[in-house]
């Protein structure tokens, strides 16, 4: 029986984009995505220089701050993650140096070459999102500096690049991207909603193919740098879309598919189970979105003083509140609704942990909507600063494109609340559409699923109204 999203789109529908020759040729070329990575490497050199030269100047007139925290962040939340999954990882320049050193070369492949570096295996206990959860949360402690002070951004970006390099020398392949990168975790989580996927085409071909070249590599490409088994991809979560499996598969059995949004949210099997670390990532992202909104788009000066560390006690209080709200309060409230769901369902067999973890995935579309709405509040008022910094990236008085003196011009801010509210409404629709399906997966009978869904539905509705109030109330 087909399952249609909103009664319109079959959730199993796929359009394989790599069946079109130009797309396939692009994906099989060794220059792709390397060319994009090289362009971004150059861009990040300029960003780092601009941050260094910018020192302590106002961030809204700094190339590094504006490109990273306004343009890149907004593109990430608007397009890259919700549509193209981990497309940023595909073109991310941070691991290029460790990749280069490990492989000995940038473009071509030397089959059988022993990778440079210690090549240690990542500890089994840490093969999850917990480290990334902590890393990202801790990074956000300093949002009051790094998003406004060029030097703080320089330090942060420099640390990330340096850590990626060192981890690449000690551990095999892309363990940094998999388990440490602060921006990797939320991309992985929200990529489950994305409208594209990398998957094998014919499972039988993979079964017959005994030498798993997609994992081991061959003369055409490297074994999966993300240490995954491309022949058995179930979810987007950890696939960095490096496209090596397209190059190494001798049968052209890898496909890049267009699909309905959110298809991965219903995947829960022994190979790709729903997990507590991902659930907590969803809570953390929601908490950060609330706290960022209050601090950056809210009118409360005392909170801004705390975030930008006007006083040490204020800053430490903010860190404490931020941590507790993200790690404890939001999950605790959600646990309350999960408990209610179990009680309402009347089911005694399904563990509360399963109910809690499963329904946490309803926060993926809702959280994405919250972040898109938040990003609208960043780009619409501040986007016009981009025209200035593009013409004068180092604040040296250049006017490359004749826009250096373009005045600050807020765009459509009269409608900001409407657009943010409408965004919440759209993603709330996805949330309840997938929430009910998750209820049916969680409870064994339809009656239990319906009863168990009701408290969760009420909680998600209240949460959406809360965000509408935050943006427009």
């Amino acid at each position: 029986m087909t399952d249609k999203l909103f009664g319109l789109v079959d959730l199993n529908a796929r359009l394989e984009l790599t069946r079109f020759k130009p797309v396939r040729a692009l994906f099989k070329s060794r220059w792709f995505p390397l060319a994009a990575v090289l362009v971004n490497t150059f861009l990040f050199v300029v960003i780092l220089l601009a941050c260094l030269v910018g020192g302590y100047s106002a961030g809204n007139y700094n190339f590094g701050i504006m490109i990273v925290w306004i343009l890149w962040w907004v593109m990430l939340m608007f397009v890259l993650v919700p549509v193209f999954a981990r497309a940023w990882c595909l073109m991310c320049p941070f691991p290029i140096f460790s990749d280069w050193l490990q492989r000995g070369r940038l473009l071509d492949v030397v089959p059988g070459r022993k990778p440079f570096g210690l090549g240690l295996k990542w500890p089994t206990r840490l093969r999850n999102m917990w480290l990334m959860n902590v890393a990202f949360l801790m990074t956000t402690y300093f949002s009051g500096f790094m998003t406004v002070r060029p030097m703080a951004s320089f330090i942060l970006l420099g640390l990330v690049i340096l850590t990626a390099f060192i981890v690449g020398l000690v551990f095999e392949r892309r363990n940094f991207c998999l388990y440490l990168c602060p921006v990797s975790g939320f991309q992985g989580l929200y990529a489950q909603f994305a409208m594209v996927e990398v998957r094998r085409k014919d499972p039988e071909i993979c079964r017959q193919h005994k030498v798993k070249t997609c994992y081991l590599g061959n003369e055409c490409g490297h074994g999966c740098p993300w240490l995954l088994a491309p022949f058995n991809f179930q979810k987007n979560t950890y696939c960095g879309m490096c496209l090596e499996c397209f190059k190494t598969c001798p049968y052209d059995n890898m496909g890049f598919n267009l699909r309905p949004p959110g298809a991965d949210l219903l995947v829960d099997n022994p190979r790709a189970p729903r997990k507590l670390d991902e659930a907590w990532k969803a809570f953390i992202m929601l908490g950060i979105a609330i706290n960022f909104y209050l601090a950056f788009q809210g009118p409360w000066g005392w909170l801004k003083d705390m975030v930008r560390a006007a006083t040490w006690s204020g800053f430490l209080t903010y860190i404490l509140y931020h941590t507790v709200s993200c790690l404890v309060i939001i999950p605790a409230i959600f646990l309350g609704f999960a408990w209610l769901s179990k009680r309402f369902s009347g089911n005694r067999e399904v563990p509360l942990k399963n109910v809690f973890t499963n329904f946490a995935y309803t926060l993926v579309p809702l959280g994405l909507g919250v972040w898109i709405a938040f990003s609208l509040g960043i780009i619409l008022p501040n986007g016009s600063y981009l025209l200035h910094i593009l013409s004068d990236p180092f604040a040296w008085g250049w006017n490359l494109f004749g826009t250096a003196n373009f005045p600050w011009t807020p765009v459509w801010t009269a409608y900001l609340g409407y657009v943010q509210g409408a965004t919440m409404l759209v993603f709330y629709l996805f949330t309840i559409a997938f929430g009910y399906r998750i209820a049916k997966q969680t409870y064994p009978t339809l009656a239990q699923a319906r009863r168990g869904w009701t408290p969760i539905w009420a909680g998600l509705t209240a949460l959406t109204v809360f965000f509408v109030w935050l943006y427009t109330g």
Partner: protein
Amino acid sequence: MSESQVALRLGFGLALLCGLACSAGAEERFFEVRAKRFAFTPHVLTVNRGDTVRIRLLSEDVHHGMYLDGYGLQTSAYPGHDGGLRFVADKPGRFSFRCSVTCGEFHPYMIGHLRVEPNTPFHLLVLAVLAVGLIGWGVATLRRQQEEPSHDR
């Protein structure tokens, strides 16, 4: 009279009453807003639709601006030189006012709110969420369905 005509007349009557109520209470409202890096005090100004709003902007440290979303108005102030705005709050909803003169590193986030009551956009959005939610809940839980929960994970 058909049902749709009755509904139309009722709606028109309600809108008229609402408009009369709003315009009847219109008054002049004065606010002295102090700007200091990176906040406005008071940070929320609440008025009724139709009120004439006068704002005197005072700066307590450096050059600050005030740009009012939705109304497209702008003024600025620096110590010893106040700015001013005067307008009729004819658009309901919540609007941000933002510092429009770069005043330091947190400048883009120096924000205050003007709330023009009744906040119709907010009420409409909440109604929309509740309506969509109730329809979704109803479709999911009330309709007769033969299917059983899927455990084909």
